[in-house]
């Protein structure tokens, strides 16, 4: 199929429509406005409904209601708006509803700015709402991947009855790239026999709820969720390795920063430094075992975590590497995208620290 040029935000919205999503509830916030705008133009053509809510809080609760009544539904926002949605997300997790949420991250904290950022990693992977719950977190690094993962997010949500977060940033949202439309591998989806779509005298009344007032019932729910999380961890982990087989310096990066790390790896290789990249695609479940195995290769001397935050995924990388190799960090906060040179510089420091014989990277020597 021919490639088409798509803007990230519009590709995400179109991907959702292709996945059968017919309902969208949202509230304007930059840099994700093209998502609701696209839905407002195109959902009516498909017999669906776009509704601009009075707040992010209302939008996520409309999403809860629609998901509870059995339809494919989505909401999207950017960082401060996603903070407002946390109440709804924990209710969705507690009521075990399939929902897709997109976060085109921007700089924070507070109102921050509208530039690309990855500083909502903790919120996404640890859960910004109350209680023991998880959301599946998918982190695309290209527009192609944003389109693919958004489509698949609906299947994952339906299979496990869990909120799925597509975690990208303003760069992925605003950039245009050539993509190819393709469908995810078909999955067998369970019937939504729990949905509140009218009993019509054919069954008892269905209840969508996250209240379990008896402690043994709430404990049982937590155990059930835990089992579900373990199953997802077993089945859904995704990552990509680039030039890791002989890598001495191993970058770990996701999303936009992985693109920068990819460039840094190629430049370092040109300069004779064996660099590689481990790119988590699912941030939860985090590819812990795979990263550990990759970092434990004898050729790997140091790990460099690079992200557009002041060190959030770093925690997961340290847990995975578990002290086997030194873990360094290079990151930027507040909406700045790091350059390949900054990553190369950190790789050089890692090499100097580990080998301690002042081996220089030729490109940087020339620059000096």
């Amino acid at each position: 199929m021919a490639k088409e040029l798509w803007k990230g935000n519009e590709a995400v919205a179109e991907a959702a429509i292709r996945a059968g999503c017919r309902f969208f509830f949202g509230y304007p916030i930059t840099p994700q406005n093209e998502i609701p705008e696209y839905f407002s133009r195109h959902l009516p053509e498909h017999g669906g409904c776009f509704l601009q809510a009075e707040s992010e809080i209302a939008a996520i609760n409309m999403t809860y209601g629609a998901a509870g009544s059995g339809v494919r539904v989505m909401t999207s926002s950017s960082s401060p708006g996603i903070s407002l949605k946390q109440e709804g997300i924990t209710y969705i997790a507690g009521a075990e509803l399939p929902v897709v949420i997109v976060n085109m991250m921007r700089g924070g904290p507070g109102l921050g700015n509208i530039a690309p950022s990855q500083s909502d990693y903790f919120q996404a992977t640890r859960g910004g709402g109350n209680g023991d719950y998880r959301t599946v977190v998918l982190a695309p690094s290209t527009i192609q991947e944003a389109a693919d993962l958004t489509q698949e997010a609906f299947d994952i949500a339906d299979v496990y009855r869990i909120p799925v977060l597509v975690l990208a940033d303003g760069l992925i949202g605003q950039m245009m790239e050539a993509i190819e439309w393709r469908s995810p591998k078909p999955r067998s989806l369970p019937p939504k026999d729990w949905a509140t779509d009218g009993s019509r005298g054919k069954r008892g009344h269905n209840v969508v709820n996250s209240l379990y007032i008896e402690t043994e019932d709430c404990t049982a729910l937590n155990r059930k969720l835990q089992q579900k999380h373990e199953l997802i961890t077993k089945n859904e982990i995704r990552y990509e390795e680039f030039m890791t087989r002989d890598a001495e310096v191993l970058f770990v990066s996701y999303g936009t920063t992985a693109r920068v790390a990819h460039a840094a790896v190629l430049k370092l290789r040109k300069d004779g430094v064996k660099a590689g990249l481990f790119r988590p695609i699912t941030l939860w479940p985090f590819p812990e075992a795979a990263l550990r195995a990759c970092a434990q290769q004898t050729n790997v001397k140091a790990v460099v975590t690079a992200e557009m935050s002041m060190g959030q995924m770093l925690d997961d990388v340290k847990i995975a590497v578990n002290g086997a190799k030194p873990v360094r960090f290079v990151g930027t906060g507040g909406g700045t995208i790091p350059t390949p040179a900054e990553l190369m510089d950190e790789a050089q420091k890692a090499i100097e620290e580990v080998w301690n014989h002042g081996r220089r990277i030729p490109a940087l020597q020339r620059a000096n």
Partner: protein
Amino acid sequence: MAVVYRRSKGLTDAQTHYCPGCTHGVAHKLVAEAMEELDIIGTTVGIAPVGCSVFAYDYFACDMQEAAHGRAPAVATGIKRAHPDLAVFTYQGDGDLAAIGTAEIVHAAMRGEKITTIFINNAIYGMTGGQMAPTTLVGQTATTAPLGRQQEHYGSPIRMAELLSTLDGCVYAERVTLTDVPNILKAKKAIKKAFELQLSGAGFTFVEILSTCPTNWGLTPLDAIGWLKEHMIPYFPLGVYADRMEERRHDA
């Protein structure tokens, strides 16, 4: 033997947790009877709030969703937009609807969302143990207003039926009470009319029910009814505040 009274099919067999003398039970019964008489139990989804009626999902026989505090109108919107053929109602207390959920109810009414809201106004937070509500009367004591609600500190209580009636999307808003049989019959009529207007696609419909909370008011059930008549009705007058379909018929 002739059956003169039976439990509505709109209710489950569950025993409610409501306190003796609380009017939630009567309000539930009226909603259930309206659904049964309109033959919509199988095509209705109700939204339970956070508050005393949080367990309403166990009591109504139709499909139910439990919403986060104040968000019932948003949850109802999601369901109704996905399933326009279903009847959707929210059942909310005064803290849920008139404090934490004010934005959601005002905007659902503004959009003319084709849902029905049953608003239980008992001038107090019941479930959490008697704290001040936005509808607590000036001078009325509450656990967070031990000297009584002070107007200079908290302002005057909010009148939701009047407020929502100013919005064009709110096609029907009536305030009723459950203090005696004639008023219970009026309340039933209002609830049924609200559902009928929703089913006809007219717009947002709202029935405010002045209710008692003997437990947190510290009164016997009978004295609570007396207190409601004496103090609540003068500030929250009963009556129809919006009936836009009637006005349209009249204009035509």
